[in-house]
């Protein structure tokens, strides 16, 4: 009954699964490290290390440095300016950037709009937009959520009516991250209200300078201006700015959400921040010792670190599966939940660690000013960060929506 198996047993040679870096990978790691050392501007590094908010110029500067090296659009096809790196190389690259605490680049152009345009766009759109996304000349923002459409994104109402060679857009978008800096916005708009709600949605590129576009700030509980309302009042958009066909917007949105979810876990940054917190525990005095001697606190840190390792290897397994079989699937939903859980738990541990010095209200201006901070330097950004990071389990498809996605797509419910 088991003849074939017996034969195989006799000829068995075990092979060890290989998770270590090859010599080439180690050389690549060295190359990335020395590039960062030589090219990461010291004035930006200083701000990053002290938790001072970056200006638009800072972020764009770093964007251009990476692009000049050809290391910006890591995941793009090689012929369009991508790197052609292996999964392992991408992993090494992201880890090195995070370890050096380089600025987080805005994902809206290079990770979101770019892949949409090169996958679904017209030749004209590709020619105009892709180079500008790469060189950072156009700052993109994302027009998805609306006041009445949060988790139920497909219920969106912003209307685009075709009149001759323009769409006339009316409506409002919300939670638009850094729209105050943006040159263009990619929007989901309703071009047809008659059928199933998913079917009448289209994907439109809109120049923010078009008459009728108005941006109003939303101030969040950390006291910052990160997100906005964007209003559209009879905004005329050339029909050539439609990506794909009319009614194809929902498919593009789903394509994008899967892309958005993989990087959203932010595992390399979590590793850096966790190490930083470990370091901080030695600097916080408790009695005659330091917080490092507090077994209860340290145990929470250890638990978090193990959870982070589990998330890291889940991401690596997902990436490995992707490299064998194509696009990120519903697995990326797990990573979104795991990663954002970790980000929030870690932000809470920082607050716990600094104790009373989490209480002074530090605005962005306070953090950026030359005046000395109240309490230890590391304490000041902790509470704004904790408050700000309530968002991560809400954006990108709330973690409840992610659970719906997994229930349906993975568990078949």
């Amino acid at each position, binding site marked *: *009954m*088991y003849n074939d*198996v*017996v034969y*195989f*047993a*006799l000829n*068995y*040679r*075990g*092979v*060890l*699964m*290989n*998770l*270590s*870096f090859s010599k080439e990978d180690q050389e690549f790691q060295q190359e990335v490290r020395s590039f960062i050392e030589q090219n990461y501007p010291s004035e930006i590094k200083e701000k990053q290390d002290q938790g001072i908010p970056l200006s638009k110029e800072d972020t764009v500067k770093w964007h251009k440095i990476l692009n000049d090296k050809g290391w910006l659009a890591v995941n793009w096809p090689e012929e369009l300016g991508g790197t052609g790196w292996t*999964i*392992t190389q991408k*992993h090494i690259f992201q880890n090195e950037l995070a370890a050096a605490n380089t600025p987080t680049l805005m994902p809206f152009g290079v990770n979101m709009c770019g892949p949409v345009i090169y996958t679904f766009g017209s030749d004209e759109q590709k020619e105009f937009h892709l180079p500008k996304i790469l060189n950072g000349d156009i700052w993109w923002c994302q027009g998805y959520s609306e006041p009445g459409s949060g988790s139920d994104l497909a219920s969106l109402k912003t209307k685009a009516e075709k009149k001759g060679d323009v769409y006339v857009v009316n409506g409002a978008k919300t939670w638009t991250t850094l729209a105050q800096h943006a040159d263009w916005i990619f929007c989901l708009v309703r071009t047809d209200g008659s059928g199933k709600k998913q079917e009448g949605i289209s994907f439109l590129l809109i120049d923010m300078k078009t008459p009728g576009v108005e941006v109003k700030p939303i101030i969040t509980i950390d006291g910052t201006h990160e997100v906005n309302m964007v209003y559209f009042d009879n905004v005329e958009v050339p029909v050539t700015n439609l990506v794909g066909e009319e009614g194809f917007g929902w498919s593009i949105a789903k394509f994008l959400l899967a892309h958005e979810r993989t990087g959203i876990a932010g595992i390399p940054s979590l590793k850096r921040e966790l190490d930083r917190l470990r370091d901080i525990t030695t600097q916080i005095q408790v009695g005659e010792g330091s917080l490092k001697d507090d*077994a209860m606190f*340290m*145990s929470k840190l*250890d*638990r978090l670190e*193990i*959870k982070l*390792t*589990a*998330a*890291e*290897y*889940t991401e*690596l*397994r997902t990436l*490995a599966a992707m490299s*064998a079989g194509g696009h990120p699937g519903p697995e990326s939903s*797990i990573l979104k*939940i*795991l990663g954002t859980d970790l980000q929030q738990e870690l932000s809470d541990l920082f607050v716990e660690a600094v104790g009373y010095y989490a209480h002074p209200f530090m605005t962005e201006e306070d953090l950026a000013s030359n005046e000395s901070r109240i309490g230890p330097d590391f304490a000041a950004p902790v509470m704004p960060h904790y408050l700000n990071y309530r968002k991560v389990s809400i954006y990108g498809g709330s973690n*409840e929506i992610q*659970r*719906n996605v*997994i*229930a349906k797509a*993975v*568990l*078949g*419910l």
Partner: protein
Amino acid sequence: MDFSLTEEQQLLQDSINQFIEREYTFDDRKKFLDSEKGFNEENWKTFGSLGWLGMPFSEDDGGYNGGPVDVMVIMENLGKGLIVEPYVPSILLSGKILADLGSDDQKSNYLHPMISGEKIITFAYIEPQSRFTLSDCLTKATPSDDGFVLDGYKALVHNASASDTLIVSARTSGNQCDEKGISLFLVDTNAKGVSLRNYSTIDGGKASELTLENVSVSKESLLGEMDEGFNAIDNAIDLATLGICAEAVGIMGKMNEMTLEYTKTREQFEQKLSQFQALQHRMVDNFMHYEQSKSLLVMCAAKMNDNTEDKKKALASLKYQIGLSGKHIGEESIQLHGGMGVTDEMHIGHYFKRLTTIRTLYGNSDYHLSNYASL
């Protein structure tokens, strides 16, 4: 980086799953459990002829040169079938110790017949006071003219009554918890002064409390050097820990599958249970626990041959996670099965019981978390 199984490992996995499907239904299993030995000797011989028993050992030792990943594949799949044959105590513990310390004679008299399925050897090292501390050993071995005399008491010796031979840890020098001073001996189960109090364990296994009273063993019974047995114990427990964690991952995957299936069948309020969002989200959380456990398992298997600290850290992470996820998936699966989940008739409860004993075996989550902190 490469996470994939080789073609041979795939075949190994397939052969175990085939075996379970054909020879190890729940009714079969119940018969094995009710037998005197608590498992089926024919199965054990089949494992031997299929090469599973020899997998972790080198060719020189009569094995197939398998590595930690192969042990992972075997145990994960044995877990899915809730196999009760003594793979862990005999192969992963005693076998590993024999491979590490055995002389040529000891290997040919004990390891080789063990690999072929003729001999079963278990490892007696837990003591009532030792809890999870491997160096805590009060059982004594006193040198005599022609060998040693053993006195002491060992707890939870798995499958002792079915074993031909026991490997017994005993103190030849030092204090209660010293690593140095522990020696390992091969002891015939029928030797004078060896008595067993046999019992069933909650997960369907068999174990014994072992009393050693003036038990004489020869010089040739000593494994390795006198006083230097600790490292071999530690290494064997590490391998067995990887093994039972893989088994737990197999069990958790199976429990998730069974729970999903159940909620798709059972109806309340004119709806399938699986259509209630409150329950869907809980099953998603079970699924995420499984994935996290599986990820750490794979990482750990790949790090078993790394330097000691990396390996220890990986094992501590893994066993901590298995304790955590084992509790979560175990308890949630029973809850999602409702009243049926607590009946002996349903399979889910049997998986739950094995998963629950694994949580404690070789150290619970707290123990491994504190190990992690000390590294």
